[in-house]
């Protein structure tokens, strides 16, 4: 699946600025000219202190917000002039989201939550959709909890459901906003290991926002933001102090 897309990088940002309250006295620029390229299958962390613009950048990458200036190519396609519906469709087809607070829909069971992206794409719960959702939930170790509502699951389990949901339609890029920020160390390790495993097995690229230097060290690439600019972008410092195999 990931072999054919060598032509264009998944993400290509050039000179991206983001200003809030544009034209108002309290106008503030949060991102000052970001250039960033993420290739297919990469596993990158996005780190930086609070207020450095991580979430803003993630929203731009996730097509939830539009840059004030600069260009964003998603799989080589310019997104600047796309309509809301086109951007929505691109989110469904290309992107997966994992949020800090899991954000499962409480009205649906764990299995149905994982089936939701398929429901959006196909307009119905199809048997194929159900089969692949079961497979994903089994892969995250939740075979026994498929029919449970999110409220009946622990935080770590909910986050694993959310990870399965993000991967439901085999996205090219998963954006994870502090996916382990709300979990205890053990659950956090488990969830992170899952992300790495899906990256390896399914070849989809990850951008993981994290505060945890331990987790950042376990990524392939670290992008560090400071005051709205990329301060550092490169492979993880040394292979010795961050052993590549999980744990």
């Amino acid at each position, binding site marked *: 699946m990931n072999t054919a897309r060598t032509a264009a990088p998944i993400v290509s940002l050039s000179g991206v600025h983001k200003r809030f309250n544009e034209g108002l006295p309290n106008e503030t620029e949060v991102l000052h000219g970001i250039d960033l390229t993420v290739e297919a299958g990469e596993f990158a962390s996005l780190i930086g202190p609070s207020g450095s613009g991580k979430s803003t950048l993630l929203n731009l990458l996730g097509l939830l917000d539009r840059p004030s200036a600069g260009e964003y190519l998603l799989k080589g396609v310019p997104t600047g002039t796309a309509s809301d519906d086109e951007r929505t469709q691109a989110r469904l087809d290309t992107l997966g989201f994992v949020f800090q607070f899991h954000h499962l829909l409480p009205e649906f069971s764990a299995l149905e939550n994982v089936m939701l992206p398929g429901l959006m794409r196909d307009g119905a*719960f199809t048997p194929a959709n159900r089969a692949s959702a079961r497979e994903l939930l089994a892969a995250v170790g939740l075979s026994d909890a498929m029919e449970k509502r999110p409220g009946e699951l622990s935080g770590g389990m909910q986050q694993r459901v959310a990870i399965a949901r993000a991967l439901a339609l085999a996205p090219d890029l998963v954006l994870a906003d502090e996916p382990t920020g709300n979990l205890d160390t053990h659950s956090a390790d488990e969830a992170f290991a899952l992300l790495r495993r899906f990256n390896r097995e399914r070849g989809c690229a990850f951008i993981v926002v994290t505060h945890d230097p331990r987790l950042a060290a376990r990524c392939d690439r670290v992008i560090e933001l400071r005051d709205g600019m990329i301060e550092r972008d490169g492979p993880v410092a040394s292979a010795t102090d961050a052993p590549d195999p999980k744990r």
Partner: protein
Amino acid sequence: MRFEWIVAWRFLREGGLQTALIIIGAALGIAFIVFITGFLGELQRDIVQRTLGVQPHVTIKPLEEVARPLRQGDARGSSRGDAPIVLSDVQPRGQRLRSIDQWQAAVARLRENPDVRAISPLVAGPGLVTRGDSNKSLSIIGIVAQPYAAVTRLDQKLIAGTLQVDPGDVLLGRDLAEDLGVGIGDTVRLSTPTSPGDTYRVRGIFDLGAKNLNQLYAYVGLATAQALHALPGGVTSIEITVDDLWDAQRVASDLSLTIPHRVESWIQTNQQLMVALSNQTLMTRMIRFTFGLVVAIGVASVLMVAVVQKTREIGILRAMGTSRGRVLRVFLVQGAIIGLIGAVLGCAVGYALALFMSGVLTSADGSRLFNAHLDFRLYFFTTLGAVVLGVVSAALPARRAARLDPAQAIRM
């Protein structure tokens, strides 16, 4: 649309008590609308039938005779002063008792109209009933029993005897029979200005529900009345029942185009009653409109709250790839579902209410004021209206939900 229905249904189901309350509210409002609509229809039909007594829906009469002066007054001539002044006075003609010209042809025409259900030709004129020393003036009406019963339901109004008007038979009203002191089998003398009359045997006694009507009418056979009123072979009016009481005026207008006679509907001849009924209908409409509005506002406010409660979920759905249009429709569908369930429950409760009230409300003679019956046409249109109302009420909350910024909504 499957996605929208699934999500809308789950949202409503998770709403629990909140959803139950708004559906109950909508159902009660709709139940009242259904009840009052059915009740008013029945009540008005009943009032009309009781008030009209034996008045038909539509009556055909001969055209009124008008005097045509041979010489018209010349206004110009008189103003010049040199022409002779003409003094003329045209008096309106007194209306004789006349037969409808070629009434058989008119009846044939009437039969062609699909709205006409029953046709009864009759002869009616003034007369006198005598028994011993007592005289009463009244209207002597010659009928053919079967069609007349079809038009006026006289057969149901008989309280004694049979609906039989063979030669020598007469039917009298209850109060007139009491005044004369006669019963079934007794004889009375009927006479008219044009006939010294004969004796007739009382075959039946009827009650039209109003004393003055019971004193006013005596029914005899058509041929008998033709002889008494000196109108051999003629009829003075043709009475018609139409399919829909409230449609009588339109049918009358249609009929007046096909036959060269005077056509009057009960609506024209009972203007006051009609005005009272229209006011009643107007009031009911206002009440129904108000109830509908209250239901709509209730649905809108509950869904508005739901949008706020579900802001984060809406944000997630949007982020995951749900379009604005879909989010909009999820909430419109919720409005439709509330309307649909509310209408189904409301129709059932409305019917139950009608059943209950029909047992409670009785008219002066102790009979039921109205009968509850299943009116599926009403239920269908009520349900349709409720679904549309639900969707319209949901429009504002749905728009709000669709306009949520996903990036902000997720942070809520």
